């Protein structure tokens, strides 16, 4: 099985090369075709028109688009994604500094979405045919219709403002330091032995994680329920009943495992969407992640930074898809047959 998974990963890595090339070219062209002037944005407001023209020349913006792209690609292959116009720092280093925050937030949210999604899906399935089914169905549709930023505002208002039970700005309390080891705050707090920082970081994660988790769990719930319905029409479920197995055992030991495969595929797709969904949540909760950085970059027409962040999102999605496909191979014996 390990060999099959390794082969799959190798295949995916090979396929990622043309995908990244196409995405980077598309991103580059779209950004350059926008009616914004990075040269003017990179100069102070009292720069003259002549100085802006000189800057355009210096930045290579007066060259043909394919030539500009090839220069960018060559630099990118050497690890240079350009300098941020706004921050005057390497775009790559800015992305590297903010990516762990977003990964931590998105991963915690995905775990929560998975827990809510699976337990909610099981509950919905369990309530089938009962009087409560339409109520549960309606509740899941209602949950589905609330986007993550709205959850963000609702939770902030209820638990932050009304109840004043949880903090909602930044990653830790103002009087605590932020340790820097790996960039993953929870891990860093434990590594430096600051449990007060760890506890504070957990408190600050609760609301944004719930906002994202609640927004993404209903889809998982509904897909799991549908998959369970399908699985329950299979012969082996009837045979399990004939063998005298309890309904609970049939559900948890037999049906859930098979129904989880489409759910897993969906969760992979959802994780990609959730990762980009951190953008608004990071702004609302003042999380210094990549989404927050993206908002700055867009506001300032910081094309090198937008390009670097866009490409990072693409890489993250490719990695998630590879992980999900690998898990699929692990969980589904049919895929391991050569």
């Amino acid at each position, binding site marked *: 099985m390990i060999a099959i998974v390794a082969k799959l990963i190798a295949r995916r890595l090979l396929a990622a090369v043309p995908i990244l090339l196409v995405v980077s070219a598309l991103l580059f062209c779209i950004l350059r075709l*926008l*009616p*914004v*002037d990075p040269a*003017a*944005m990179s*100069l*102070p*407001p*009292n*720069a*003259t*028109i*002549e*100085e*802006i023209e000189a800057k355009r020349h210096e930045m290579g913006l007066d060259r043909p688009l394919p030539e500009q792209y090839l220069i960018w690609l060559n630099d990118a292959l050497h690890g240079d994604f350009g300098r941020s116009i*706004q*921050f*005057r*720092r390497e775009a790559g280093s*800015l992305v590297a*500094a*903010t990516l762990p925050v977003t990964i931590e937030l998105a991963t915690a949210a995905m775990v929560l979405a998975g827990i809510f999604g699976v337990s909610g899906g099981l509950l919905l399935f369990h309530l089938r045919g009962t009087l409560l089914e339409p109520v549960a169905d309606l509740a899941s549709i209602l949950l589905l219709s609330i986007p993550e930023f709205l959850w963000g*505002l609702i939770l*902030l*208002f209820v638990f*932050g*403002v009304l109840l*004043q*039970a*949880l*903090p*909602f*700005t*930044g*990653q830790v*309390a*103002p*009087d605590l*330091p*932020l340790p820097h080891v790996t960039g993953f705050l929870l891990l860093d707090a434990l590594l430096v032995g600051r449990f007060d920082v760890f*506890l*504070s970081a*957990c*408190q600050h994660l*609760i609301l944004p994680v719930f906002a994202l988790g609640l927004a993404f769990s209903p889809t998982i719930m509904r897909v799991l329920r549908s998959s369970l319905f399908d699985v329950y029409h299979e012969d082996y479920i009837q045979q399990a009943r004939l063998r005298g197995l309890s309904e609970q055992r049939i559900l948890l030991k037999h049906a859930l495992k098979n129904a989880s495969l489409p759910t897993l595929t969906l969760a992979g797709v959802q994780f990609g969407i959730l990762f980009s969904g951190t953008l608004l949540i990071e*702004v*609302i*909760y*003042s*999380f*210094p992640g990549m989404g*927050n*950085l993206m*908002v*700055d970059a867009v*506001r*300032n*027409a910081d094309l090198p930074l937008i390009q670097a962040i866009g490409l990072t999102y693409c890489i993250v999605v490719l990695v998630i898809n590879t992980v999900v496909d690998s898990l699929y191979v692990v969980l589904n014996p049919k895929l391991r047959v050569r």
Partner: protein
Amino acid sequence: MVLKLQRRSFLQLALGTAATIGTSARIAFAATNDAVTIGWPNDVPSWDPNQRFTPDAQPVFKAVFDQPLDQDPKLKLIPHLIKNWNLAPDALSMAIELRDDVTFHNGDPMTTEDFRYTFFERIKSGIKLDTANSWKKVDDIVIESPTKATMKFNSPAPTAPQWMAFLGSYVVPKKYIEGQGYDNFLKNPIGTGPYKLAEYELNSRIVLERNDKYWGPKAKIGRVTIEIVKDPSARVAAIQSGQVDCTLNVPVREVERFNKEGGFAAEIDPITRVILLNVRADLAFADKNVRLAAHHAIDKAALSKAFYGGAAVPLSVLATPGTPGYLPDFSFKYDPGLAKELLAKSNFSPANPVKIGLAATNGQFPSDYDIARAIVQMWKNVGIEADLQVIEYAKYFELNRGGKLPEATLYSWDNATGDPEIFSGYQLNPKMPFSPWKDEDIGQKVLTLFGVADYDKRIAGYRDLERYAVENGATMPLLQSVLTVVRKHNLAYTKYDNGWVLPQTLQWT
């Protein structure tokens, strides 16, 4: 039984944890008398204060670094690191004398070597600095002693003293940067300011600690935490929940709500920022009657009342009250009847409207898009049909450069100095990228004023220009913009006319 016990234990554990989390969260909100937390709308772009002109970051820079000259709350230029200055009558040189008791945060004394390095050497060294643009006229800085030097300009620099207290003009430590390296300076910046940078997390927070060896008045509060909260609703929630002690730039309606409900001190302060319509000299606006009619048709007082609680002062010139270029006796009237008459002279009426375009940002400054919509309606009543287009601020310069802006564009312009060169001088200078107004007559007047060395003559010239530009429809000033501040009642700060909220002026009362 075992299962029940486990379940009970689990519930107790969960509730206990929740209570602990809740309690410690509340403890975290409590403020001490020697600390304050501010909800700030934007991060600093870099810790090199000479690098980027970002108006919102200036109060943060002013806490860590010092400017050669400063402004008092009424924006009068006052000595700071520079004790005395003397701009030559031809504005081709400026002699300065620095204080002799200033040290950087690492203990190094601040001298004319640092001054020369900041305003000449590092600019010439090729580091990409915005100050390279403001100080491009500097030919040399001749050092006479550790405290005395003379700046030499290659062309008249009449606003050099004003720029000494403006965007990006902060003295940085030569020895430290050259010795420790530029990258280290960006990570561990030191200045001569009243606060030291204790901690910085990109897009998250800035922690400042009082510089007890500061040469000037010591800051009243020992530790200032600036939480970067970009979302206005989150800033409102943060102050309301007590997670921050003070915040800025919240929606005007929220300030009104805070004032009604009590509990917090909430203010709408007019500042040296103008909201105006930048106009073209061609297309349908080639007709002066149409331009003037468009201006007469705008009820600025109604805009102020509707969108800024009446706190934004209606403007007739491109300068704010109290600044040198302001004309208190000149008023450009709201007169829809006159607007109709002017349009009638050009054969336009509500039945046969003149068609123009109006561009506006949505969210660049408070209520921008709503103001634009209201103007469209006001214009419609007199016979001007405007097609409203939303543009990104970042696109403004590109559209202007390509001559693609419509007849009018709603714009906001900040000028912390209050000097008229940086108001109408910059806005109407045809060689600068701001104004779509390209016209020889006004352009030549502006360019002449850029070389006038005598202060009184320069100010008088700008006052004439402002009136002339408005009377000819070359610009349409609308309102003085506002800054909103919400704070705890017992937290005081010094109000500056340009909207600075300086950490070193905060104090608990």
